[in-house]
């Protein structure tokens, strides 16, 4: 049985429909990423799970206990679902230790010290939140939520306030921590890299509608539609009809001496490789290349047909 089941969740803000028939499930110990652009409804789902938003209709269940349906609305404090806010929401009048203690039951099995050492902040126990760096505050927020022993942990954009240089380390730390404590978690992100790196399963939302649910590799290799494909990087449409398209990802194309002829429009450096825009007779292609090419250079585009993917038009 799934730990959490979300079924046919609808939500409106006035006339504005922000969720439409949203359904997915979370298994014990699983990490789920809710991935989408701003306004896609991912934070609304998170707040509905936490009990801070009352959806218009649908059902949310924890195992066989109904948390929300048309007759039931279990209060946030009774759900045993932890929430880590984007801006951490640490209590400014309490020390790090007291912040963590607040969520713990009186005779909690694991001491505050255990959680402090787990997030590497044993030395900071008596500091106030405003004496910590952003990253340290986030660790306290995670430790505080986990110390309350929630059945499910929700994280709202956990990496949005972290410097790019520290993100890799944080992703690794968070995943290790969640897996070590066997905590099921849902995190909201607009960054595909975060979702691919951490999640066991990704739920992609667009305009309140679930576009696809799957493992990171499933979603990368078999995207449901052009929207999902685009979220994971640039691609080219090889063939298109009314309902579907055949696409090839930019990284699956190469530039060589044979293939589709074209001329270089621009080269964009993106770290290890360059993204080259090539104008062909009918359209413009995007291809990854190991070195920059000057404008108007004549090139030929190649791709292997087994790398093409057939997707629905979104």
């Amino acid at each position, binding site marked *: 049985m799934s730990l959490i089941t979300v079924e046919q969740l609808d939500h409106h803000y006035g006339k504005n429909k922000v969720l439409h028939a949203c359904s997915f499930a979370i298994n014990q110990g699983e990490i789920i990423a809710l991935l989408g652009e701003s306004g896609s409804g991912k934070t609304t789902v998170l707040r509905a799970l*936490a009990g801070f938003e009352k959806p218009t209709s649908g059902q949310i269940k924890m195992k066989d*206990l109904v948390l929300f349906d048309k007759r039931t609305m279990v209060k946030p404090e*009774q*759900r045993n679902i932890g929430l880590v806010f984007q801006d951490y929401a640490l209590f400014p009048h309490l020390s790090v230790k007291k912040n963590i203690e607040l969520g713990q039951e009186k005779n909690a099995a694991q001491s505050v010290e255990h959680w402090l050492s787990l997030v590497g902040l044993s030395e900071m126990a008596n500091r106030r939140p405003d004496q910590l760096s952003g990253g340290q505050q986030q660790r306290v927020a995670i430790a505080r939520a986990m110390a*309350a022993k929630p*059945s499910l942990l929700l994280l709202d954009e956990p990496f949005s306030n972290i410097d790019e240089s520290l993100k890799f380390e944080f992703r690794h730390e968070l995943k290790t921590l969640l897996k070590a404590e066997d905590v099921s978690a849902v995190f909201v992100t607009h960054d595909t890299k975060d979702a691919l790196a951490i999640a066991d399963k990704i739920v992609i939302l667009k305009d309140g509608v679930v576009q696809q649910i799957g493992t990171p590799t499933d979603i990368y290799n078999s995207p449901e539609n052009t929207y999902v494909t685009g979220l994971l990087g640039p691609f080219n449409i090889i063939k298109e009809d009314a309902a579907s398209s055949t696409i090839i990802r930019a990284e699956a194309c190469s530039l060589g001496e044979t293939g589709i002829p074209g001329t270089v429009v621009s080269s964009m450096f993106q770290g290890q490789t360059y993204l080259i825009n090539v104008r062909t007779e009918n359209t413009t292609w995007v291809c990854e290349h190991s070195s920059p090419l000057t404008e108007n250079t004549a090139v030929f585009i190649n791709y292997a047909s087994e790398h093409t993917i057939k997707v629905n038009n979104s």
Partner: protein
Amino acid sequence: MKQAGTKNTSQKRFLLDQRQWWLLATIVAVLVLLSPILCLFPELFKPLGSAWNNLKETVLPAYISNTLILIAGVGLGTVLLGLSSAYLTSMYRFPGARFLRFGLLLPLAIPSYIAAYVFSGVTEYSGPLHLIGRGLGQNDWHVNIMHLPGLIVVLSLVLYPYIFATARVSLESRYNSYIENARSLGLKGTSLLLKVILPLLRPALIGGVFLVIMEVLNDYGAMKYFGITTFTTGIFTAWFSMNDLNSAVRLALMLFVLVALLSYLENWFSRKHKVTESTRSKKSAPKKLTGVPAILAGIYTWGLFIIAFITPVAYLAWRFTLAEHGRAIDEWFTLGRNSLLSGLAGVALILLIALLTQFTQQLIRSKLSRVIGRSISIGYTIPGAIIAIGVLLLSSGIDHAIGQGLLLTGSFGMLIFAYTVRFSGVAYQPLQAEAEKRNGKLFEAAQSLGKSPWSVLKKVYLPVSTNGILLAATLVFIDITKELPLTLILRPFNFSTFATKAFEYADDELLSKAALPALSIVLLGMIPVLLLHRTLRAK
């Protein structure tokens, strides 16, 4: 791992009901607060006395025209004084400009009724102005301000800081990027003022003018002292001189309709001309003025500060030196005790109601809780005289129902209740600002940690709202100390405060005796001005 919803049934039911209890308690509190205002309406359906017809045919047209002229005149006067002084001190640097950014807020500490008799005293035949005139050989020099235009000037001098504060924060921070952008496009001087600054400030100015008008409509002392008849003085006359409650209520309701209309217009205008705040950027240094412009700017702003603040304070201090000090100081302790007692009792009850309402709004984020939250501020937009009449109707109604004589009417408790009706909105604003700063996330975080509403209140809401609570308590205390019309009508027999005594003495032309209680109010009134200045600087 804990399980969701596994508390035992009775506990669960209790927890499930906690929010509803909070909401119910808030609704009851707000209904009780609004009850004096609601009490006015049934009076409309009672038979009319001959006094009303008489009043309608004789003085009502004057009430209407004087009230309208007064609010229009003071509105215009405060905009001219407030905007010009804010523009000069925010955009330019000249000797004293930095101090004047605070100094020009200080007239806010002077209640309008005190300003009225101070300026009247300064300009009367035996006052300092004429003494100076005669000293300069101008024996037939005569200045008389005891008329409607004079009252407009006096009220403008003490109420312009509302506009000054609004314009200052807009110029220095809220719209700073827009103004700098316009400058980078080559606009300066008058074209910058007319094409960018004034259109940007329009909604803020309208908001400020609305507050000024509310203050004017709430005033009784200044109008009475100047002998100008308006709705507010009319309510007092109908009630005290003619003993005609029905007419007083009708006048109160007419005033209420005017306030509601103005409030609607202000809201509509603010929505229609809403300006999005620019990104807060560091304010660039004001332009340094030299030569004649610096002298003119200095004369204007220092002149305003001296006339509007230094003159009244110096006059009061001088008057105090002429008083019989021993008796005045003895009386000061009695008045101080009464003012302190009523202030503290009012603060306690008001904080209780404001905290209850604000916390419920944080706990239950719904349209209903927001509407309830806003409702407790209604009293602040209603002149004290109207509230006083409503409270009298309510207390006499209850006394009549109990049949044990005057238990509530004229009691200290009803005076405190009336303060609560009038000033709950004053306490609510800082608490709301504090909660908005936290964005409600802290309280949600505590709930997601399994804390019940009561526990959230105790462990998170109250500790993090300490600053807001202190600010609210200070503002309410000082507002109560300054309050006049409500206290005059509802105070228990033989119970005087600084405000009522200052007014009584001034009304009896005993200005020297009025000086000490008046000075006390002005000094107390400087505390919120200081707090306001700190807030504006922080912004």
